Protein backbone atom coordinates (compact mmCIF):
# COMPACT_ATOMS: atom_id res chain seq x y z
CA UNK A 1 0.00 0.00 0.00
CA UNK A 2 1.00 3.56 -0.56
CA UNK A 3 2.54 5.01 2.60
CA UNK A 4 1.56 8.53 1.59
CA UNK A 5 -2.13 7.71 1.63
CA UNK A 6 -3.94 10.41 3.58
CA UNK A 7 -6.64 9.57 6.08
CA UNK A 8 -10.33 10.01 5.32
CA UNK A 9 -10.61 12.92 7.73
CA UNK A 10 -7.81 14.83 6.07
CA UNK A 11 -9.28 14.05 2.66
CA UNK A 12 -12.62 15.52 3.75
CA UNK A 13 -10.88 18.60 5.08
CA UNK A 14 -8.87 19.10 1.89
CA UNK A 15 -12.04 18.98 -0.19
CA UNK A 16 -14.31 21.10 1.97
CA UNK A 17 -12.20 23.68 3.75
CA UNK A 18 -10.87 25.78 0.82
CA UNK A 19 -14.33 26.90 -0.36
CA UNK A 20 -15.34 27.39 3.25
CA UNK A 21 -12.42 29.70 3.98
CA UNK A 22 -12.91 31.56 0.72
CA UNK A 23 -16.54 32.17 1.63
CA UNK A 24 -15.55 33.10 5.17
CA UNK A 25 -13.09 35.67 3.88
CA UNK A 26 -15.58 36.93 1.33
CA UNK A 27 -18.07 37.66 4.10
CA UNK A 28 -15.98 38.54 7.14
CA UNK A 29 -13.61 41.03 5.58
CA UNK A 30 -16.44 43.10 4.03
CA UNK A 31 -18.35 42.85 7.33
CA UNK A 32 -15.36 44.24 9.19
CA UNK A 33 -15.07 46.96 6.56
CA UNK A 34 -18.79 47.72 6.85
CA UNK A 35 -18.66 48.21 10.61
CA UNK A 36 -15.45 50.22 10.31
CA UNK A 37 -17.05 52.56 7.75
CA UNK A 38 -20.21 52.94 9.78
CA UNK A 39 -18.17 54.36 12.68
CA UNK A 40 -16.46 56.95 10.49
CA UNK A 41 -17.54 60.09 8.79
CA UNK A 42 -17.00 59.33 5.12
CA UNK A 43 -18.58 61.66 2.61
CA UNK A 44 -17.43 63.89 -0.21
CA UNK A 45 -17.81 67.23 1.62
CA UNK A 46 -16.48 66.63 5.15
CA UNK A 47 -13.04 65.31 6.21
CA UNK A 48 -12.58 61.63 7.04
CA UNK A 49 -12.66 61.07 10.80
CA UNK A 50 -13.66 58.64 13.52
CA UNK A 51 -17.01 59.69 14.96
CA UNK A 52 -18.11 56.84 17.21
CA UNK A 53 -21.87 56.30 16.83
CA UNK A 54 -22.75 59.69 15.31
CA UNK A 55 -23.96 58.06 12.09
CA UNK A 56 -26.33 55.82 14.05
CA UNK A 57 -27.62 58.76 16.15
CA UNK A 58 -28.16 60.80 13.00
CA UNK A 59 -30.00 57.93 11.32
CA UNK A 60 -32.26 57.07 14.24
CA UNK A 61 -33.23 60.72 14.80
CA UNK A 62 -34.38 61.11 11.24
CA UNK A 63 -38.17 60.86 10.67
CA UNK A 64 -37.51 59.68 7.10
CA UNK A 65 -35.59 56.68 8.42
CA UNK A 66 -38.49 55.65 10.67
CA UNK A 67 -40.79 55.86 7.70
CA UNK A 68 -38.43 53.75 5.58
CA UNK A 69 -38.07 51.05 8.23
CA UNK A 70 -41.84 50.89 8.52
CA UNK A 71 -42.17 50.72 4.72
CA UNK A 72 -39.71 47.84 4.54
CA UNK A 73 -41.49 45.84 7.22
CA UNK A 74 -44.91 46.44 5.68
CA UNK A 75 -43.56 45.55 2.27
CA UNK A 76 -41.94 42.30 3.41
CA UNK A 77 -45.01 41.31 5.45
CA UNK A 78 -47.27 42.02 2.48
CA UNK A 79 -45.11 40.00 0.10
CA UNK A 80 -44.89 37.12 2.57
CA UNK A 81 -48.60 36.89 3.28
CA UNK A 82 -49.55 37.18 -0.40
CA UNK A 83 -46.88 34.71 -1.49
CA UNK A 84 -47.65 32.15 1.17
CA UNK A 85 -51.40 32.12 0.66
CA UNK A 86 -51.10 31.82 -3.12
CA UNK A 87 -48.22 29.33 -2.97
CA UNK A 88 -50.10 27.09 -0.55
CA UNK A 89 -53.18 26.98 -2.78
CA UNK A 90 -51.12 26.39 -5.93
CA UNK A 91 -49.09 23.64 -4.24
CA UNK A 92 -52.23 21.89 -3.02
CA UNK A 93 -53.75 22.10 -6.51
CA UNK A 94 -50.56 20.75 -8.11
CA UNK A 95 -50.59 17.90 -5.66
CA UNK A 96 -54.18 17.03 -6.54
CA UNK A 97 -53.90 16.75 -10.29
CA UNK A 98 -52.53 13.88 -12.31
CA UNK A 99 -52.82 14.81 -15.97
CA UNK A 100 -50.88 17.78 -17.40
CA UNK A 101 -49.01 18.17 -14.14
CA UNK A 102 -45.61 18.67 -15.77
CA UNK A 103 -46.95 21.50 -17.95
CA UNK A 104 -48.50 23.26 -14.99
CA UNK A 105 -45.35 22.81 -12.93
CA UNK A 106 -43.27 24.39 -15.66
CA UNK A 107 -45.59 27.38 -15.82
CA UNK A 108 -45.63 27.72 -12.06
CA UNK A 109 -41.82 27.79 -11.84
CA UNK A 110 -41.42 30.09 -14.83
CA UNK A 111 -41.44 33.42 -12.89
CA UNK A 112 -38.44 32.17 -10.97
CA UNK A 113 -36.43 32.64 -14.15
CA UNK A 114 -37.54 36.24 -14.48
CA UNK A 115 -35.22 39.00 -13.29
CA UNK A 116 -36.83 41.19 -10.62
CA UNK A 117 -35.95 44.29 -12.63
CA UNK A 118 -38.10 42.97 -15.43
CA UNK A 119 -41.11 42.21 -13.26
CA UNK A 120 -40.75 45.67 -11.70
CA UNK A 121 -40.80 47.13 -15.19
CA UNK A 122 -43.82 45.11 -16.25
CA UNK A 123 -45.83 46.11 -13.22
CA UNK A 124 -44.77 49.75 -13.65
CA UNK A 125 -46.15 49.54 -17.12
CA UNK A 126 -49.42 47.86 -16.17
CA UNK A 127 -50.03 50.58 -13.58
CA UNK A 128 -48.67 53.44 -15.67
CA UNK A 129 -50.92 56.46 -14.98
CA UNK A 130 -51.23 57.41 -18.65
CA UNK A 131 -50.92 54.28 -20.78
CA UNK A 132 -51.36 51.45 -18.34
CA UNK A 133 -53.90 48.71 -18.91
CA UNK A 134 -55.01 48.89 -15.28
CA UNK A 135 -56.26 52.46 -15.63
CA UNK A 136 -57.82 51.58 -18.95
CA UNK A 137 -59.87 48.87 -17.27
CA UNK A 138 -60.75 51.20 -14.39
CA UNK A 139 -61.92 53.91 -16.79
CA UNK A 140 -63.96 51.59 -18.93
CA UNK A 141 -65.69 50.37 -15.77
CA UNK A 142 -66.50 53.99 -14.96
CA UNK A 143 -63.99 54.66 -12.14
CA UNK A 144 -61.47 57.47 -11.75
CA UNK A 145 -57.94 56.57 -12.92
CA UNK A 146 -55.40 56.07 -10.15
CA UNK A 147 -51.88 57.47 -10.16
CA UNK A 148 -49.74 55.07 -8.13
CA UNK A 149 -46.86 57.54 -7.97
CA UNK A 150 -48.96 59.96 -5.93
CA UNK A 151 -49.03 57.85 -2.80
CA UNK A 152 -46.25 55.95 -1.09
CA UNK A 153 -48.59 53.29 0.29
CA UNK A 154 -49.97 52.53 -3.15
CA UNK A 155 -46.45 52.27 -4.57
CA UNK A 156 -45.44 49.80 -1.87
CA UNK A 157 -48.49 47.70 -2.58
CA UNK A 158 -47.77 47.61 -6.32
CA UNK A 159 -44.11 46.77 -5.70
CA UNK A 160 -45.23 43.97 -3.39
CA UNK A 161 -47.36 42.55 -6.21
CA UNK A 162 -44.34 42.49 -8.55
CA UNK A 163 -42.20 40.83 -5.91
CA UNK A 164 -44.88 38.27 -5.06
CA UNK A 165 -45.00 37.29 -8.70
CA UNK A 166 -41.36 36.14 -8.58
CA UNK A 167 -41.38 34.75 -5.02
CA UNK A 168 -44.27 32.29 -5.38
CA UNK A 169 -42.35 29.53 -7.25
CA UNK A 170 -39.75 28.85 -4.56
CA UNK A 171 -42.29 28.81 -1.72
CA UNK A 172 -44.57 26.63 -3.82
CA UNK A 173 -41.80 24.14 -4.62
CA UNK A 174 -40.75 23.82 -0.99
CA UNK A 175 -44.34 23.12 0.10
CA UNK A 176 -44.97 20.76 -2.81
CA UNK A 177 -41.82 18.73 -2.08
CA UNK A 178 -43.09 18.26 1.46
CA UNK A 179 -46.63 17.43 0.27
CA UNK A 180 -45.34 14.68 -1.97
CA UNK A 181 -43.51 13.11 0.94
CA UNK A 182 -46.76 12.41 2.75
CA UNK A 183 -47.37 8.66 2.47
CA UNK A 184 -50.55 7.80 0.57
CA UNK A 185 -51.69 5.28 3.18
CA UNK A 186 -52.26 8.16 5.62
CA UNK A 187 -54.87 9.65 3.28
CA UNK A 188 -56.41 6.27 2.64
CA UNK A 189 -56.78 5.26 6.27
CA UNK A 190 -58.28 8.67 7.05
CA UNK A 191 -60.75 8.20 4.20
CA UNK A 192 -61.75 4.78 5.47
CA UNK A 193 -62.32 6.34 8.89
CA UNK A 194 -64.74 8.71 7.17
CA UNK A 195 -62.78 11.95 7.46
CA UNK A 196 -63.93 14.84 5.27
CA UNK A 197 -61.48 16.49 2.86
CA UNK A 198 -61.21 19.50 5.10
CA UNK A 199 -60.56 17.34 8.15
CA UNK A 200 -57.82 15.49 6.28
CA UNK A 201 -56.24 18.80 5.33
CA UNK A 202 -56.54 20.26 8.81
CA UNK A 203 -55.38 17.28 10.86
CA UNK A 204 -53.06 15.35 8.56
CA UNK A 205 -51.71 17.53 5.78
CA UNK A 206 -51.28 20.82 7.62
CA UNK A 207 -49.27 19.45 10.58
CA UNK A 208 -47.03 17.51 8.20
CA UNK A 209 -46.26 20.46 5.93
CA UNK A 210 -46.16 23.03 8.72
CA UNK A 211 -42.39 23.09 8.82
CA UNK A 212 -42.11 23.77 5.10
CA UNK A 213 -44.62 26.61 5.43
CA UNK A 214 -42.62 28.11 8.27
CA UNK A 215 -39.38 27.73 6.34
CA UNK A 216 -40.65 29.25 3.11
CA UNK A 217 -42.32 32.15 4.96
CA UNK A 218 -39.01 32.86 6.61
CA UNK A 219 -37.14 32.75 3.29
CA UNK A 220 -39.70 34.96 1.56
CA UNK A 221 -39.69 37.52 4.35
CA UNK A 222 -35.90 37.58 4.52
CA UNK A 223 -35.41 37.92 0.77
CA UNK A 224 -38.03 40.57 0.23
CA UNK A 225 -36.86 42.47 3.31
CA UNK A 226 -33.40 42.98 1.90
CA UNK A 227 -33.92 43.07 -1.86
CA UNK A 228 -34.78 46.49 -3.30
CA UNK A 229 -34.57 45.51 -6.99
CA UNK A 230 -38.25 46.05 -7.71
CA UNK A 231 -38.27 49.47 -6.10
CA UNK A 232 -35.28 50.62 -8.10
CA UNK A 233 -36.98 49.86 -11.39
CA UNK A 234 -40.48 50.86 -10.31
CA UNK A 235 -39.89 54.17 -8.55
CA UNK A 236 -36.50 55.75 -9.12
CA UNK A 237 -36.02 58.44 -6.47
CA UNK A 238 -38.41 56.92 -3.98
CA UNK A 239 -41.73 58.60 -4.73
CA UNK A 240 -43.10 61.78 -3.12
CA UNK A 241 -40.44 63.18 -0.75
CA UNK A 242 -38.56 59.85 -0.79
CA UNK A 243 -41.30 58.51 1.47
CA UNK A 244 -41.85 55.37 -0.63
CA UNK A 245 -38.39 53.92 -0.21
CA UNK A 246 -37.22 50.69 1.41
CA UNK A 247 -33.99 50.21 3.37
CA UNK A 248 -31.97 48.70 0.54
CA UNK A 249 -32.89 51.52 -1.81
CA UNK A 250 -32.00 54.10 0.85
CA UNK A 251 -28.61 52.42 1.26
CA UNK A 252 -27.99 52.47 -2.47
CA UNK A 253 -28.99 56.13 -2.88
CA UNK A 254 -26.77 57.29 -0.02
CA UNK A 255 -23.97 55.26 -1.61
CA UNK A 256 -24.60 57.01 -4.93
CA UNK A 257 -24.31 60.44 -3.25
CA UNK A 258 -20.99 59.27 -1.78
CA UNK A 259 -22.18 59.10 1.84
CA UNK A 260 -20.28 55.88 2.46
CA UNK A 261 -20.45 56.30 6.25
CA UNK A 262 -24.21 56.67 6.37
CA UNK A 263 -24.84 53.96 3.79
CA UNK A 264 -22.64 51.53 5.77
CA UNK A 265 -24.67 52.37 8.85
CA UNK A 266 -27.85 51.41 6.99
CA UNK A 267 -26.03 48.25 5.93
CA UNK A 268 -25.35 47.40 9.58
CA UNK A 269 -29.03 47.99 10.39
CA UNK A 270 -30.06 45.57 7.60
CA UNK A 271 -27.47 43.06 8.77
CA UNK A 272 -28.70 43.14 12.37
CA UNK A 273 -32.33 42.82 11.25
CA UNK A 274 -31.42 39.76 9.16
CA UNK A 275 -29.62 38.20 12.13
CA UNK A 276 -32.65 38.84 14.35
CA UNK A 277 -34.91 37.28 11.71
CA UNK A 278 -32.68 34.23 11.44
CA UNK A 279 -32.56 33.76 15.19
CA UNK A 280 -36.31 34.23 15.35
CA UNK A 281 -36.79 31.49 12.78
CA UNK A 282 -34.49 29.08 14.62
CA UNK A 283 -36.29 29.78 17.92
CA UNK A 284 -39.69 29.26 16.27
CA UNK A 285 -38.48 26.04 14.67
CA UNK A 286 -37.04 24.71 17.92
CA UNK A 287 -40.22 25.47 19.87
CA UNK A 288 -42.29 23.77 17.20
CA UNK A 289 -39.98 20.78 17.15
CA UNK A 290 -40.00 20.53 20.96
CA UNK A 291 -43.78 20.53 20.89
CA UNK A 292 -43.73 17.68 18.37
CA UNK A 293 -41.32 15.64 20.46
CA UNK A 294 -43.34 16.42 23.59
CA UNK A 295 -46.47 15.09 21.93
CA UNK A 296 -44.60 11.95 21.15
CA UNK A 297 -45.24 11.97 17.44
Amino acid at each position, binding site marked *: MNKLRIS*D*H*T*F*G*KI*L*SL*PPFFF*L*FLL*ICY*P*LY*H*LIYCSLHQINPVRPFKFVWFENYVFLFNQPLFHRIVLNTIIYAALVTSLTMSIALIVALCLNN*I*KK*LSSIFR*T*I*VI*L*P*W*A*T*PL*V*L*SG*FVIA*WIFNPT*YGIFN*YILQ*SLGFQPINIYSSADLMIFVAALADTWTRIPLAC*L*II*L*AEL*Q*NIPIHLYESAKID*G*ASSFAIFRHIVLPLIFHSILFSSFLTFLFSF*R*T*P*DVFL*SLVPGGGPGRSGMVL*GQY*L*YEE*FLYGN*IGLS*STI*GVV*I*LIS*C*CILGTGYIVAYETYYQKLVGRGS
Partner: protein
Amino acid sequence: MRSPKSDKIIEIASYILLSLYSFIILSPVIWIFLTSLKSLNEIFSWPPTILPKNPTLINYHEVIERYGFVTCILNSSYIAGITSLVVVTSGVLCAYGLTFFRYKGSSQVAYAILFSRLAPPIALLVPLFLIFREMGLVNTRESLIVYTFFMSFPFIMWCLIGFFRKFPKDLIDAAMVDGCSRIDVLLKVVLPLSKGPLAALAAIAFLWSWNEFMGALVLIRSRGLMPITLGFFTFTQEEYTNWGDLCAAGIMTLIPTIIVFMILQRHMVKGIFSGALRG
Protein backbone atom coordinates in the same frame (compact mmCIF):
# COMPACT_ATOMS: atom_id res chain seq x y z
CA MET B 1 -67.50 7.41 3.73
CA ARG B 2 -66.24 9.97 1.29
CA SER B 3 -67.56 9.46 -2.17
CA PRO B 4 -65.22 9.51 -5.13
CA LYS B 5 -67.47 12.31 -6.38
CA SER B 6 -65.99 14.85 -3.94
CA ASP B 7 -62.51 13.79 -5.06
CA LYS B 8 -63.56 14.52 -8.61
CA ILE B 9 -64.85 17.96 -7.62
CA ILE B 10 -61.58 18.80 -5.88
CA GLU B 11 -59.63 17.67 -8.92
CA ILE B 12 -61.69 19.78 -11.30
CA ALA B 13 -61.44 22.78 -8.99
CA SER B 14 -57.66 22.30 -8.95
CA TYR B 15 -57.53 22.37 -12.74
CA ILE B 16 -59.63 25.53 -12.86
CA LEU B 17 -57.54 27.32 -10.25
CA LEU B 18 -54.29 26.28 -11.91
CA SER B 19 -55.47 27.46 -15.32
CA LEU B 20 -56.46 30.80 -13.82
CA TYR B 21 -53.11 31.09 -12.09
CA SER B 22 -51.22 30.15 -15.27
CA PHE B 23 -53.14 32.84 -17.11
CA ILE B 24 -52.12 35.44 -14.53
CA ILE B 25 -48.51 34.30 -14.70
CA LEU B 26 -48.28 34.18 -18.48
CA SER B 27 -50.34 37.19 -19.51
CA PRO B 28 -47.74 39.88 -18.67
CA VAL B 29 -45.06 37.96 -20.57
CA ILE B 30 -47.30 37.43 -23.58
CA TRP B 31 -48.34 41.04 -23.45
CA ILE B 32 -44.78 42.41 -23.54
CA PHE B 33 -44.04 40.00 -26.35
CA LEU B 34 -47.03 41.26 -28.37
CA THR B 35 -46.16 44.87 -27.63
CA SER B 36 -42.57 44.37 -28.74
CA LEU B 37 -43.96 43.54 -32.19
CA LYS B 38 -45.99 46.75 -32.47
CA SER B 39 -44.96 50.07 -33.95
CA LEU B 40 -44.74 53.07 -31.63
CA ASN B 41 -47.90 54.63 -33.08
CA GLU B 42 -49.90 51.53 -32.37
CA ILE B 43 -48.62 51.26 -28.79
CA PHE B 44 -49.84 54.75 -27.95
CA SER B 45 -53.17 54.40 -29.75
CA TRP B 46 -56.23 54.56 -27.54
CA PRO B 47 -57.98 52.19 -26.87
CA PRO B 48 -55.00 49.78 -26.67
CA THR B 49 -54.93 46.96 -29.20
CA ILE B 50 -54.19 43.43 -28.12
CA LEU B 51 -52.81 41.76 -31.24
CA PRO B 52 -50.34 43.82 -33.31
CA LYS B 53 -51.93 45.02 -36.57
CA ASN B 54 -48.69 45.04 -38.57
CA PRO B 55 -46.13 42.90 -36.72
CA THR B 56 -42.67 44.43 -37.07
CA LEU B 57 -39.20 43.57 -35.81
CA ILE B 58 -38.06 47.22 -35.92
CA ASN B 59 -37.93 47.42 -32.11
CA TYR B 60 -35.54 44.49 -31.89
CA HIS B 61 -33.39 45.94 -34.64
CA GLU B 62 -33.25 49.24 -32.77
CA VAL B 63 -32.31 47.63 -29.47
CA ILE B 64 -29.54 45.55 -30.99
CA GLU B 65 -28.13 48.27 -33.21
CA ARG B 66 -28.32 51.27 -30.92
CA TYR B 67 -27.94 49.84 -27.45
CA GLY B 68 -25.56 46.92 -27.95
CA PHE B 69 -27.78 44.35 -26.30
CA VAL B 70 -25.82 41.52 -27.88
CA THR B 71 -22.73 42.56 -25.87
CA CYS B 72 -24.87 42.55 -22.74
CA ILE B 73 -26.11 39.04 -23.49
CA LEU B 74 -22.53 37.85 -24.05
CA ASN B 75 -21.43 39.46 -20.77
CA SER B 76 -24.27 37.83 -18.91
CA SER B 77 -23.54 34.44 -20.45
CA TYR B 78 -19.89 34.77 -19.47
CA ILE B 79 -20.69 35.75 -15.88
CA ALA B 80 -23.46 33.22 -15.38
CA GLY B 81 -21.60 30.42 -17.18
CA ILE B 82 -18.37 30.80 -15.20
CA THR B 83 -20.27 31.20 -11.93
CA SER B 84 -22.36 28.11 -12.49
CA LEU B 85 -19.31 26.06 -13.49
CA VAL B 86 -17.26 27.19 -10.49
CA VAL B 87 -20.12 26.89 -8.02
CA VAL B 88 -21.12 23.39 -9.10
CA THR B 89 -17.53 22.08 -9.26
CA SER B 90 -16.52 23.47 -5.89
CA GLY B 91 -19.92 22.60 -4.45
CA VAL B 92 -19.58 18.96 -5.51
CA LEU B 93 -16.08 18.66 -4.05
CA CYS B 94 -17.07 20.40 -0.84
CA ALA B 95 -20.30 18.43 -0.36
CA TYR B 96 -18.53 15.16 -1.23
CA GLY B 97 -15.94 15.85 1.44
CA LEU B 98 -18.50 16.94 4.00
CA THR B 99 -20.91 14.03 3.56
CA PHE B 100 -18.70 11.00 2.92
CA PHE B 101 -15.52 11.88 4.80
CA ARG B 102 -16.77 13.39 8.00
CA TYR B 103 -14.30 14.89 10.40
CA LYS B 104 -14.64 16.61 13.72
CA GLY B 105 -16.53 19.83 13.03
CA SER B 106 -17.68 18.92 9.52
CA SER B 107 -21.35 19.50 10.30
CA GLN B 108 -20.47 22.87 11.82
CA VAL B 109 -18.70 23.77 8.60
CA ALA B 110 -21.80 22.78 6.65
CA TYR B 111 -24.05 24.89 8.86
CA ALA B 112 -21.66 27.84 8.71
CA ILE B 113 -21.81 27.73 4.91
CA LEU B 114 -25.61 27.60 5.00
CA PHE B 115 -25.89 30.43 7.49
CA SER B 116 -23.57 32.63 5.47
CA ARG B 117 -26.59 33.11 3.23
CA LEU B 118 -28.15 35.08 6.08
CA ALA B 119 -25.66 37.90 5.55
CA PRO B 120 -27.55 40.45 3.44
CA PRO B 121 -25.86 40.80 0.05
CA ILE B 122 -26.93 44.42 -0.20
CA ALA B 123 -25.07 45.32 3.00
CA LEU B 124 -21.91 43.57 1.82
CA LEU B 125 -21.96 45.28 -1.56
CA VAL B 126 -20.70 48.68 -0.45
CA PRO B 127 -17.65 47.34 1.43
CA LEU B 128 -17.02 44.87 -1.40
CA PHE B 129 -17.04 47.79 -3.81
CA LEU B 130 -14.52 49.66 -1.66
CA ILE B 131 -12.29 46.57 -1.34
CA PHE B 132 -12.45 45.83 -5.07
CA ARG B 133 -11.63 49.46 -5.77
CA GLU B 134 -8.49 49.16 -3.65
CA MET B 135 -7.54 46.05 -5.60
CA GLY B 136 -8.33 47.68 -8.93
CA LEU B 137 -11.02 45.11 -9.65
CA VAL B 138 -13.99 47.43 -9.86
CA ASN B 139 -15.69 47.53 -13.23
CA THR B 140 -14.57 44.04 -14.24
CA ARG B 141 -16.81 41.08 -14.91
CA GLU B 142 -14.64 38.99 -12.60
CA SER B 143 -15.61 41.09 -9.58
CA LEU B 144 -19.23 40.31 -10.31
CA ILE B 145 -18.40 36.60 -10.59
CA VAL B 146 -16.94 36.67 -7.08
CA TYR B 147 -20.15 38.28 -5.87
CA THR B 148 -22.49 35.83 -7.63
CA PHE B 149 -20.38 32.96 -6.27
CA PHE B 150 -21.11 34.22 -2.77
CA MET B 151 -24.80 34.51 -3.67
CA SER B 152 -25.31 31.00 -5.00
CA PHE B 153 -22.67 28.76 -3.41
CA PRO B 154 -24.36 28.20 0.00
CA PHE B 155 -27.68 27.14 -1.51
CA ILE B 156 -26.15 24.85 -4.13
CA MET B 157 -23.80 23.24 -1.63
CA TRP B 158 -26.62 22.68 0.83
CA CYS B 159 -28.80 21.04 -1.84
CA LEU B 160 -25.89 18.78 -2.80
CA ILE B 161 -25.36 17.72 0.81
CA GLY B 162 -29.07 16.88 1.02
CA PHE B 163 -28.75 14.83 -2.14
CA PHE B 164 -25.52 13.05 -1.18
CA ARG B 165 -26.92 12.08 2.21
CA LYS B 166 -29.54 10.00 0.44
CA PHE B 167 -26.95 8.42 -1.82
CA PRO B 168 -26.69 4.63 -1.26
CA LYS B 169 -23.59 4.19 0.88
CA ASP B 170 -23.22 0.55 -0.15
CA LEU B 171 -22.33 1.54 -3.68
CA ILE B 172 -19.44 3.63 -2.45
CA ASP B 173 -18.22 0.97 -0.07
CA ALA B 174 -18.39 -1.63 -2.84
CA ALA B 175 -16.36 0.59 -5.16
CA MET B 176 -13.83 1.20 -2.41
CA VAL B 177 -13.46 -2.53 -1.81
CA ASP B 178 -12.92 -3.01 -5.52
CA GLY B 179 -9.93 -0.74 -5.24
CA CYS B 180 -11.25 2.59 -6.46
CA SER B 181 -9.54 5.63 -5.01
CA ARG B 182 -11.73 8.28 -3.40
CA ILE B 183 -11.45 10.53 -6.44
CA ASP B 184 -12.35 7.57 -8.69
CA VAL B 185 -15.45 6.94 -6.58
CA LEU B 186 -16.50 10.54 -7.08
CA LEU B 187 -15.84 10.50 -10.82
CA LYS B 188 -17.06 7.00 -11.66
CA VAL B 189 -19.81 6.27 -9.15
CA VAL B 190 -21.20 9.45 -7.59
CA LEU B 191 -21.17 11.85 -10.52
CA PRO B 192 -22.73 9.56 -13.17
CA LEU B 193 -25.59 8.82 -10.78
CA SER B 194 -26.29 12.46 -9.95
CA LYS B 195 -26.36 13.97 -13.42
CA GLY B 196 -29.98 15.14 -13.12
CA PRO B 197 -29.68 17.04 -9.85
CA LEU B 198 -26.33 18.45 -10.94
CA ALA B 199 -27.85 19.79 -14.15
CA ALA B 200 -30.70 21.26 -12.11
CA LEU B 201 -28.38 22.97 -9.67
CA ALA B 202 -26.17 24.25 -12.47
CA ALA B 203 -29.27 25.72 -14.08
CA ILE B 204 -30.32 27.35 -10.81
CA ALA B 205 -26.86 28.87 -10.31
CA PHE B 206 -26.93 30.05 -13.92
CA LEU B 207 -30.35 31.66 -13.59
CA TRP B 208 -29.50 33.37 -10.32
CA SER B 209 -26.31 34.83 -11.72
CA TRP B 210 -28.09 35.81 -14.91
CA ASN B 211 -30.74 37.63 -12.91
CA GLU B 212 -28.30 39.30 -10.52
CA PHE B 213 -28.93 43.01 -10.54
CA MET B 214 -27.80 44.89 -7.43
CA GLY B 215 -24.26 43.52 -7.68
CA ALA B 216 -23.95 44.65 -11.27
CA LEU B 217 -25.45 48.04 -10.42
CA VAL B 218 -22.80 48.72 -7.79
CA LEU B 219 -19.77 47.00 -9.30
CA ILE B 220 -20.02 47.69 -13.01
CA ARG B 221 -19.86 51.08 -14.69
CA SER B 222 -18.94 50.84 -18.35
CA ARG B 223 -21.48 50.00 -20.95
CA GLY B 224 -19.39 47.33 -22.65
CA LEU B 225 -19.19 45.21 -19.49
CA MET B 226 -22.78 45.41 -18.31
CA PRO B 227 -24.76 42.21 -17.87
CA ILE B 228 -28.20 42.23 -19.38
CA THR B 229 -30.19 43.06 -16.26
CA LEU B 230 -28.16 46.21 -15.75
CA GLY B 231 -28.26 47.00 -19.46
CA PHE B 232 -32.02 46.73 -19.35
CA PHE B 233 -32.22 48.89 -16.24
CA THR B 234 -30.06 51.73 -17.61
CA PHE B 235 -32.06 51.49 -20.78
CA THR B 236 -35.36 51.92 -18.88
CA GLN B 237 -33.87 54.94 -17.08
CA GLU B 238 -32.80 56.57 -20.34
CA GLU B 239 -35.72 55.72 -22.58
CA TYR B 240 -38.59 55.55 -20.18
CA THR B 241 -41.28 56.33 -22.76
CA ASN B 242 -40.04 54.24 -25.64
CA TRP B 243 -42.21 51.27 -24.74
CA GLY B 244 -41.69 49.33 -27.96
CA ASP B 245 -37.92 49.23 -27.55
CA LEU B 246 -38.27 48.53 -23.84
CA CYS B 247 -40.50 45.54 -24.45
CA ALA B 248 -38.13 44.20 -27.09
CA ALA B 249 -35.28 44.60 -24.60
CA GLY B 250 -37.35 42.89 -21.93
CA ILE B 251 -38.06 39.92 -24.18
CA MET B 252 -34.38 39.69 -25.06
CA THR B 253 -33.56 39.68 -21.34
CA LEU B 254 -36.04 36.91 -20.77
CA ILE B 255 -35.43 34.65 -23.78
CA PRO B 256 -32.05 33.17 -22.74
CA THR B 257 -33.35 32.34 -19.28
CA ILE B 258 -36.42 30.71 -20.79
CA ILE B 259 -34.26 28.65 -23.16
CA VAL B 260 -32.07 27.40 -20.29
CA PHE B 261 -35.18 26.79 -18.29
CA MET B 262 -36.93 24.83 -21.05
CA ILE B 263 -33.91 22.62 -21.73
CA LEU B 264 -33.35 21.82 -18.10
CA GLN B 265 -36.81 22.15 -16.61
CA ARG B 266 -37.44 18.40 -16.44
CA HIS B 267 -34.19 17.92 -14.55
CA MET B 268 -34.89 20.99 -12.47
CA VAL B 269 -38.28 19.86 -11.31
CA LYS B 270 -37.01 16.32 -10.80
CA GLY B 271 -33.82 17.42 -9.09
CA ILE B 272 -35.66 19.72 -6.76
CA PHE B 273 -38.32 17.15 -6.05
CA SER B 274 -35.82 14.40 -5.42
CA GLY B 275 -35.41 16.07 -2.09
CA ALA B 276 -32.57 18.38 -2.97
CA LEU B 277 -34.46 21.27 -1.45
CA ARG B 278 -34.97 19.68 1.89
CA GLY B 279 -32.34 19.80 4.54
